[in-house]
């Protein structure tokens, strides 16, 4: 690795840290939230928004932007954090997270928030919507990519696989799916709920340019995103990212049943302090 890329990834590491911290601050406002997911996905979002995607924070609807589709609406807290870090949403607005008349509702909705492209929440809709967007972009001869962040639990929705077939059928080389495999859906790990492995083989069999990386390793993520963008074949691209729930805050990483974790009122500041300490070390 060159020193330049090390420096680049140092910047990304700071961004990922800031996303985690901002998400924890929002969690503190609401007293609860899908904070473990926000912590696990922060590295993916840092690489997406501060390395891979073309976008203009001052103009979130800029026609030439890459689109980011969040189908897992409950990850909104993480996306708000990256939108705040990117300057799309003013930082002071994090105080309104999840409150009445806030632009930052608990579940991400396109009609509420600048930079939120689609309404998620009903899982299994992001990838099929992305199919249409990719077709529409090709009609316009646009060079923009559509990114869709899915989760491993979401792969249980059959509509995702309708879309997986379709993307290869239409040779959607402008589509990059990112699967957050944190191995923890609402009722437990997918192996006990609805098994989805072997994921790499499945996506390859569906005709996708497929990679699997440690989703909390910035170097690996940068390489995977670069490869996905630079790939010259006609296949749609998928990056399967193995991540750790609660990443960055050890006492949350090990907390049981952490799909929707309980964080006591006095623990938020501890979590932020631990996060800062871990990052500094």
């Amino acid at each position, binding site marked *: 690795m060159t020193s330049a890329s090390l420096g680049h990834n140092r910047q990304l590491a700071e961004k990922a840290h800031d996303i985690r911290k901002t998400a924890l601050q929002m969690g503190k406002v609401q007293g609860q939230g899908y904070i473990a997911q926000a912590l696990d996905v922060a590295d993916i979002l840092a690489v997406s928004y501060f390395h891979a995607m073309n976008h203009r924070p001052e103009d979130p609807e800029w026609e030439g932007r890459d689109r980011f589709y969040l189908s897992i609406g409950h990850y909104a807290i993480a996306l708000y954090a990256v939108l705040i870090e990117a300057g799309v949403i003013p930082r002071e607005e994090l105080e309104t997270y999840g409150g009445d008349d806030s632009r930052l509702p608990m579940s991400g909705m396109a009609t509420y928030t600048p930079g939120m492209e689609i*309404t998620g*929440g009903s899982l299994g809709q992001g990838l*099929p919507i992305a199919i*249409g*967007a990719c077709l529409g972009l090709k009609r316009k001869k646009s060079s923009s990519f559509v990114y869709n962040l899915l989760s491993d639990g979401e792969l249980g929705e059959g*509509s995702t696989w*309708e879309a997986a077939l379709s993307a290869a059928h239409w040779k959607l080389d402008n589509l990059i799916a990112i699967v957050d495999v944190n191995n923890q859906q609402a009722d437990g790990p997918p192996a006990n709920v609805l098994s989805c492995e072997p994921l790499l083989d499945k996506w390859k069999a569906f005709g996708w340019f497929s990679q699997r990386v440690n989703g909390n390793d910035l170097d690996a993520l940068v390489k995977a995103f670069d490869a996905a963008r630079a790939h010259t074949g006609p296949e749609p691209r998928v990056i399967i990212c193995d991540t750790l729930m609660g990443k960055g805050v050890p006492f949350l990483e090990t907390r049981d049943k952490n799909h929707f974790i309980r964080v006591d009122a006095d623990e938020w500041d501890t979590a932020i302090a631990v996060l800062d300490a871990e990052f500094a070390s």
Partner: protein
Amino acid sequence: MSTKKVFAAQDASKPRLTTSAMIASIAGEGQRTKAAPFGHALVALANERPEIVGLTADLGKYTDLHIFGQAHPDRYYQMGMAEQLLMSAAAGMAREGCVPFATTYAVFAARRTYDFICMAIAEEDLPVKIVCALPGLTTGYGPSHQATDDLAIFRAMPNLTIVDPCDALDIEQAVPAIADHPGPVYMRLLRGNVPLVLDEYNYRFQLGKAALLRDGADVLFVSTGFMTMRALEAADALRKDRIEAGVLHVPTIKPLDEEAILKAAAKPGRLVVVMENHSVIGGLGEAVARLLMLSGVHPAFRHVGLPDAFLDAGALPTLHDRYGISTPAVTERVKEWLGK
């Protein structure tokens, strides 16, 4: 546990009709028809408007969208037998500036893709036009293909405009009108050789508007879809018994043309009969009844619709008689209601 049906004994004096092709024409013998009015109207519209695209879920030929596909192959998207994808992809294309017409059968749109239409299309008011064949009882294929519940299902969806055209003219004129509408639309489709009736009535389709096709002192039919054709035929038949019937055609089910319906229903001394090719639950009949109750307009009120049941398979004429939506069945019931 056996779930097998018990069949009625056959009436030996009547011929046993056979189930016709998947999509039987509802045109009567010798009736004037037009071929594929939806497909041709969409081609004409797309010639003027480059943002029109067509998507289907392996039912291009069965929704007349193949005509559009032949004329505009670069704008025709065969999405495969994947209706959830069909609706979501239409939403994605609309996001990027297209005006998509998405076609399938009404059962699949209403029952299988509701959540996708709701969250990917309607919640953001995207201009997707959902056009679906086999509405109500227009196939003898059985409950898997008989959308007797689509209006009930879709009426509850906010932002969605719902259209049930009567004939080829209605469909032709509805196509550009629904394309012009800024939000999502669900339109019931008659395909193949579609009856042509309304050209004799100085009628023009207007989205959201009902039209009084004829007036009469004794009965007011408030009808939608091809039941307007049946209402016009019943009105002719009733004249022989000196019963004068008016026909108010309501092609837009939602939003309802409340003003026109109230004006016509408030005319004193008339039996109001709502007619629809749909279950008696959740369609035009209940919408009109609610409107009349809330408005303090209380005419004698009857409702011709399909029963709250999974309907039989068989030949369409047999089934339309059996469930009371054929012209003779309607005519007889109205005479009964009037005590004649």
